């Protein structure tokens, strides 16, 4: 038996000064065990002192009393540590946006407002410096989404340890994304500070205007559906072709909507086209949770770490919304699309939801199994269960709390990945300069 004591991945080669030295791991062959773990399965269950058996990249067995044979297998003893399914970032511009303020480094928003044929996956840059900083916090998969107005394109789920986007693709073009108009009167003037107030008189009705835009999308879907019903086409329509999967339920329709009006209007797409729908954003989704449940609409809460929508709202409303959805039985997941931290605080957004009404395991599910369900990858990932890819994270403590979250190891498809990132390398570099390595402070 070959025992591997997990030593923190902060063991870098001294020569390593750039991410370029971080290599994607080779495919995992044979059997490995992770033992003595507190296993957070992802489905709400916790297995104390559990063992995970991984074979050729897949989880073969999970349990409290799995025997670990004395053969030539790799065994990771993680006594005292917590093991989680790889976290999934359900909405992201990862790999499409390197630095948002620099146009040359962004590939996220195409021209036009009916772009269902635009595919995020082809622009996904596996060499983005952001990727490895997410892995360091346990995020092993991400849904990469094009932005824009109305139909923005198709998203793909990627795993975060790859040489190129084809390697990274975990599920391709599985989401079609729709950005709804606000359906709300715009601000007409300044409030506060004495710059005068009040709406501008000449506004057109924002709801009508918005509904016309939405009707444009419906017309598109109607024609696309008819197009798919006919056997042969005189000419090929790439945009119609791109949404074929929606009607066959092989794709989901992700609708960016926050207000009740937006969400209710979005239900049209379920009713008329029978699509599987995911509401993205959903800041007011708690007000229609029962309706969402009734119509089998799932929700991605984009940013719990957000201010309440209205001044009159509960000060903690964004923190509590997840619990309201949970209570109503809505399938939801939590995201972190903060543009300054780039998604790395995903577990803490879930942790906040746990502080305000979810159980910790429910909060975990919101960034693992439920996210996988929404993205249509629950057959492959999202929980530590037999038959799934071995996408696994090991943390010193509760991964949802920054106080204890410290990811020491991670496996994608059984491959133990290198948790080095640009930040650790720069830290290392300057710890050397100042000779402060290991110092706790002064």
């Amino acid at each position, binding site marked *: 038996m070959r025992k591997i004591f997990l030593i923190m991945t902060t063991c870098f080669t001294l020569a390593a000064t750039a991410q370029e030295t971080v290599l994607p791991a080779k495919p995992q062959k044979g059997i490995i065990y992770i033992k003595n773990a507190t296993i957070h399965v992802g489905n709400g269950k916790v297995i104390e002192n559990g063992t995970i058996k991984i074979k050729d990249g897949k989880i073969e067995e999970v349990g409290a009393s799995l025997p670990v044979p004395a053969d030539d297998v790799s065994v990771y003893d993680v006594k005292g540590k917590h093991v989680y399914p790889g976290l999934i970032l359900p909405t992201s511009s990862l790999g499409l946006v390197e*630095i948002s303020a620099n146009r040359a480094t962004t590939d996220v928003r195409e021209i036009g407002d009916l772009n269902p044929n635009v595919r995020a996956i082809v622009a996904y840059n596996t060499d983005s410096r952001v990727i490895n900083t997410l892995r360091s916090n346990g995020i092993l998969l991400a849904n990469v989404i094009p932005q824009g107005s109305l139909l923005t394109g198709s998203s793909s789920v990627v795993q975060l340890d790859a040489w190129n986007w084809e390697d990274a693709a975990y599920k391709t073009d599985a989401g079609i994304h729709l950005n709804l108009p606000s359906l709300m009167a715009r601000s007409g003037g300044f409030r506060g*500070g004495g710059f005068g107030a009040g709406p501008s008189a000449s506004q057109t009705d924002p709801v009508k205007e918005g509904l016309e835009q939405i009707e444009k999308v419906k017309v598109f879907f109607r024609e696309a559906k008819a197009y798919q019903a006919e056997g042969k086409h005189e000419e090929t329509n790439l945009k119609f072709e791109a949404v074929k999967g929606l009607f066959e339920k092989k794709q989901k329709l992700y609708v960016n909507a926050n207000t009740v009006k937006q969400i209710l209007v979005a239900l049209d797409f379920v009713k008329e086209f029978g699509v599987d729908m995911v509401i993205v954003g959903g800041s007011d989704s708690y007000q229609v949770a029962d309706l969402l449940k009734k119509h089998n609409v799932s929700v991605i809460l984009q940013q719990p770490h957000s201010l309440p929508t209205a001044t009159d709202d509960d000060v903690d409303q964004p923190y509590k919304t997840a619990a309201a959805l949970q209570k109503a039985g809505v399938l939801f997941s939590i995201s972190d699309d*903060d543009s300054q931290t780039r998604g*790395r605080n995903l577990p803490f957004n879930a942790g906040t939801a746990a502080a305000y009404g979810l159980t910790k395991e429910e909060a975990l599910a919101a960034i693992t199994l439920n996210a996988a369900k929404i993205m249509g990858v629950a057959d492959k990932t999202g929980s530590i269960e037999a038959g799934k890819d071995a996408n696994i994270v090991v943390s010193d403590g509760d991964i949802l709390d920054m106080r*204890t979250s410290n990811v020491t190891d991670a496996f994608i498809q059984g491959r133990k990945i290198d948790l080095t990132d640009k930040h650790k390398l720069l830290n290392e570099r300057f710890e050397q300069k100042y000779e*402060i390595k290991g110092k706790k402070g002064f």
Partner: protein
Amino acid sequence: MRKPNTWLAMVCSIFFSLPLWAQPTFPENGVADPRHGHYAFTNATIVKDAVTTLTNATLVIKDGKIVAVGSNLKVPAGAVEVDCKGKFLYPSFIDIYADYGTPAAQRTTGGGFGGFTPGQQAQLSTNTKGAYGWNQAIKSDVDAYKVFVVDDAKAKPLRDAGFGTVLAHVKDGIARGTGTVVTLANEKENLVMLKERASAHYSFSKGTSTQSYPGSMMGMIALLRQTYLDAQWYKQRPAAEGINLSLQSWNDNQGLPQIFEANDKWNNLRADRIGDEFGVQYIIKGGQNEYQRIKEMKTTNATFILPLNFPQAQDVEDPNEARFVALTDMKHWELAPTNVAAFEKAGIPFCLTTADLRDVRSFWSSLRKAMEYGLSETKAMEALTKTPATLLGVYDKVGSLDAGKLANFVITNGPIFNEKTAILFNYVQGIKYTVKEENLIPGTYNLAINTPSGTESYTLDVKSSSSATMFAKDTLNAKFTQDGKMIKLNYAPLTRRMRPQGATDGQRPPMGSGGFGRGGTTDQTLPANAARLSGVNNGKEWNGTGIDSLGNSLTWTATLVKETEMKTDSAKKKDMPAIGKVVYPFMPFGWEDGQQPKQENILIKNATVWTNEKEGVLQNADVLIKNGKIAAVGKNLSDASARVIDGTGKHVTPGIIDEHSHIAAASINEGGQSVTSEVRITDNLNPDDVNIYRQLSGGVTTSHILHGSANVIGGQTQLIKLRWGANDDDLKFKGWPGQIKFALGENVKRSSSAISNASNNNRYPDTRMGVEQVLIDAFTRAKDYQKAWKEYNDAKEKLIKEKKSTASLVAPRRDLELDALVEILEKKRFITCHSYVQSEINGAMKVAEQMGYTVNTFTHILEGYKVADKMKKHGSFASTFSDWWAYKMEVEDAIPYNAAIMQKVGLTVAINSDDAEMARRLNQEAAKIVKYGGVTEEEALKMVTLNPAIMLHVDDKVGSLKVSKDGDVVLWSDHPLSIYAKSLYTIVDGTVYFDRQKDEAMQKQVDDERLRLVRKMNGEKRSGAPVIPAQPTYQIMHTCSDHGHSHGLLVIDSDDINND
């Protein structure tokens, strides 16, 4: 009973308008027609002024002036007598802020909020041609009397509302020149102007100025302050300045009443403080929200000019629309009509104006609403007459009915403030303007129609100029109208016996039940062969001709038999409607008067206590707060006077201090220039920011409100304590040495101002090389300035010592921009410098060392870890984010280990928010420094408590739990660095400003109050009152202009708005 017969005769006798006496210098084309407009108005109730009423009195006017007023006056020979029995005479009103007679300023677009709009070029100098000052918004040279033109289209609605005199000025610019007092007579400008230069005007609006500076509230304040100083200095005629007409006229205008248009409760205070600094007491043109801070209004000692444009009810029937209408807006809708009454109650003098009304014709309905909500008649009258006249120094001419004053008065048919009273005439300078014709006497008339077949007799019950009932034996189908003097009466032939709709069989309709001529129904039933009568109202007898149903010509006469007895005026004072209470601040979660949390003695028992002192973390310990200070920290404390809070299983820490925040301010960025050290956040604090309360819920007790990063040398900052409900002054952290914001890098070189990757920036600097030069230049100028003042002061001192005259000494020009920089050089003001990359950090320190100052704090400082040793040597503090990066080029190398590295190198490090959302979780941000950098938990907590206190130079007052420090304390539900920790109590100065249990109750109150107001608005709608569509309440949030935020749907980043 009223006898209008003689009155009517009078009306007819002066039916035409008199020309005003001729103007001697103007040639006459024709025959001279000199007149004197000599009239005596007798038997009237004359309200001379708000407190003097004469009954059965006489007013004599001649040549446009009042000759005499009194009881028992004889009608002088040569005067036309006008019997005003039953009528009331009042002085015509004065509108001190009317929109009249001057060209409307054409608003410009662009210019940019904060003077800093990405993608737009700056306009750095004035577009005004001529020998004027440097800033296009200072239009002190504009004299309204030079551009004034009579505009009868605008005068008429004002006259109809009872106004006779207005102050007109050009409403454009921050300084707006002078106003002129004119009457509303439709005469040559020469004759209606009462006082050419009557007032000087100021505002917080750039108006048509397209110049970038000032681009913010604080910039406007700074511009005004500097202009006062410059104008004073200009009196010495400094040669270097040449001729400056703006400053010259500024000085010329100082002797006039100074009127400041501030339009908002906080702006009123801001304006008043400028006045206080320069010995000016402004008359303040307010808004509608002063009732929200009436005590503060009183402290200004100002007289106010108050508009009556109350908010309209919104259509909030749809809950999904109502959701986005803030409680604040709904409460304001309900309470705004109390605004004027609040001034009266507080004993603050005020005038009323038609300004800001959507339509001058709504003046009376608005005024009556204000009265319904508590404004007294006496005060209303004063506010419309004596007060404005006195302010403008024209009370000798207008404002009361006294001999020698202008014959500016209104004649009404009842007490002027009664609901049913109408203004009949408005005399301006003795010229009659008819407001409402009242020459129809309602009553019963005998109608005699002389047909070829003999005289037919009818009875005509006349109710109004459009309604009368005609009957003989039975009621006829008839339509009556009077237009001016002309009478028309059509009726169906008798034989048809058509009945009016609604009449019961065989009976004529009761009086006032509608009768004829109402609506279109009777019209429709009038047959084609209806008789048509036409005639003239000759008073109590009408005469006319007509054609009967058979086509015969006829004549007719109607004679008044009995005048309708007018009901005695039953207009009772309406009861004040039930209304909600003012809360402080005027926001959700605000406190009602008397409910504000008070300072208490508090003993937290048996908690884990993070002292931030050498005692470290104490288990099962107590903290006692007395009289707002920490009184004791230790075990087994007791105090009989203290409220005991059980801290078992909980944690106590000092209140969180946010080194970098942009909440609670009306403006943040003054980007109009690269150096704006003259602007001050403190000039524009905004206590009505719900984020104060939200941040209290996250344990924050002190926030450093920084200027943004639009320019290299930004504005002076302000440290505040989160005393939710306090006014702007009471928010301030007392006894704090000031700081100032500097900025480097991408924002100041306007990197985002790029089109297709080519710089669109025209404001120096455009590179980090230029940034260095801006700093060197600014401090070089500051040193020269410092030296000039030192030399001046030394010379002055010497002369004084030698008892010689100092008259020959010329003081240098006071420069607010350089004053602030000199304070830095003298270590009285400290820098917090927005910075990212190592080159610029290093560069800023080298400039500082060269010029002799220290960069106190580098804020953001995301590459501080690369030059931490140099920063330590320089003596800087570091205030940074925990884990931000990769949102712009200069943060490409930002790492979450930054804080820890700097700390380990020996720097005092803080973690700040720069974000209203993250500020609620600063404890968690500190926790990340343990996670990423491995500092101890105690050191991490200090990064959001003691360390920021140190860099803000207030560590003697806050930042740790040490006896005699301020009682700023948080009780956490859990380990303070854990994501599961919530603040249970956030205490500032021993006052519990956030109490998680109470918060739940307050949320309930907010919901209840919302429900009440939504229902009230819906009631308004159902009762048929006009409502406007629901208006989502957007909140402007100010930021660094640096990065994105998760502030929610209804928040507009001030960077994203243009100034149009």
